[in-house]
């Protein structure tokens, strides 16, 4: 039970840290990383939620696991795209 709340708290903390980084900016790379931290927080929240049935002795919620996997794929490609854009922006600026 304690570990559940620990994970939940960490997830909320990650979303908060990411949100702060996104707000403060101003470098674009920092903002991209901050978005990833928020994403990690949300995925952690979802994995923690999937753990809830386990505490009652049932198997974990596999729908949430599937959502996290889909979300990870989306997040990786979005980050790659953002970094590629940033790279092009920086090389053109020089």
């Amino acid at each position, binding site marked *: 039970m304690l570990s559940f709340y620990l994970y939940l708290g960490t997830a909320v903390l990650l979303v908060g840290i990411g949100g702060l980084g996104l707000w403060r900016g101003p470098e674009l790379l920092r903002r991209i990383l901050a*978005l990833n931290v928020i994403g990690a927080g*949300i995925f952690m*929240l979802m994995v923690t939620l999937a753990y809830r049935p386990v505490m009652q002795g049932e198997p974990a919620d596999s729908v949430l696991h599937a959502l996290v996997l889909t*979300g990870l794929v989306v997040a990786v*490609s*979005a980050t790659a795209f953002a970094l590629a854009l940033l790279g092009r922006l920086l090389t*053109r600026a020089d």
Partner: protein
Amino acid sequence: MFPALLLVTLPLSAALLMLLWPRFARSLHVTVALLSVPLAGYFLQQILLHGEQQWLLGGWSPLLAIRWQADSLSALLLLLSALLHLLVSGYALAVQARDRLPAAFWPLSSLLLASLQALWLARDLFNWYVCLELLGMVAVALVTLSGDKALKPALNYLLFSLFASLCYLLGVALLYAGYGALDLPLLAGQLEANRLNAMALLLITLGLMLKAACWPLHIWLPAAHAAAPAAVSALLSALVVKGPLFILYLVWTELAPQAFWLPASYLFALAALGALLFGGIAALRTPYGKSLVAYSTVAQLGYATLALAFVLRFNLPEFVAALWLFVLAHALAKAASFLAMGELQQTLGSKQVSALKGASQTMPLAMFAFAVAGGSLIGLPPSGGFLAKWALLLGLWQSQQYFWLLVLAVATLLAAAYVFRVVVLAFDRAEPTAPDFAPQRLPQYLALLPALAVWAMALFSMPLLTLLKQEL
């Protein structure tokens, strides 16, 4: 089932094939664009004949499966997207040599169509997230097609879009934590008015309003839409911002508990007030032609937000009709005005509004298209914009919201001011043109087409109104 499935899978598989065989990209793209329109038309007819249809993809149980559902509104939006996609494809074909439109336009715009069509059909919170992400990333990639100067606005757009998706995803995760379902019809009417749900709905609304560029979350839109190539701006302004609006409407009318409707309606009304006034003023002041049209999108989205606010507050069928009439009329008018403005800028060689001096003599067709579309943006009878505004006025009159009648009058005057700012300049005496000045005619006719269609909406007002009102 079959036509709906084809409407999504055809452009999707075509886009993948285009990446494999770039040589056939253009012909594949045009084939799919041509096929989509009769398919969407046939589908709308089927829905009108047999009523609403729904499918659980893969035949799974509703808790696992993605639900697709098509009512007449979805079918209408499917047809609208297919039509505008075909039109913009035609425009892109006509100008691609002159504007040096990169070949990446073809697969990307097919992907855009696929993700939009999937969005209109889906009734699943997570599937919407995937559609929104796909739509956002494809839209950003399309903005970058106009070269290096578009990189900065495109990256900004991407960051806003990703943040909005994450807000939406967090909201969806919170809802799932409470109810263990993502399916819209399963969740409908289940939600209680507690703090967790308030938080979840607030996050979902924030994400969707960011993506739909509702004032004051619109700051990414003018730069991104103005930097994109004209064909892309037309698609983005006409269709892409309407996707999140559609989800917002369904989430609030079907999912949200009635106790939250009143505060939400105040929030939406405030956003609408800001959009109508400040969007209009910004369009009046900007020195650049395409920014003017982009700010006009911000202002016009205010009408749709206002209609949504009053749907939640009074639940009159007039407001639902007004909301979707605005979406239809704005999509057509904005496609026309972006294509016309892009054509004017490209041919006259300047982005400034002041360069349009005398355009009624040098490029009468494009200017005519802009003015005719502008008439619908203002809401002159008997255009589509007038039809939507009339439905809104009727509803406001019935619910005795006299303050908002005044706001609508001011917003209409602002719209008239920014449209006439261009038109008056165009009727000034033209500077002598160079001897080799030869504007292309075909793209100008293509820009005129949706402008005429939006005026023709008045002829079909009865079937349109009955179709939209039966949604209640």
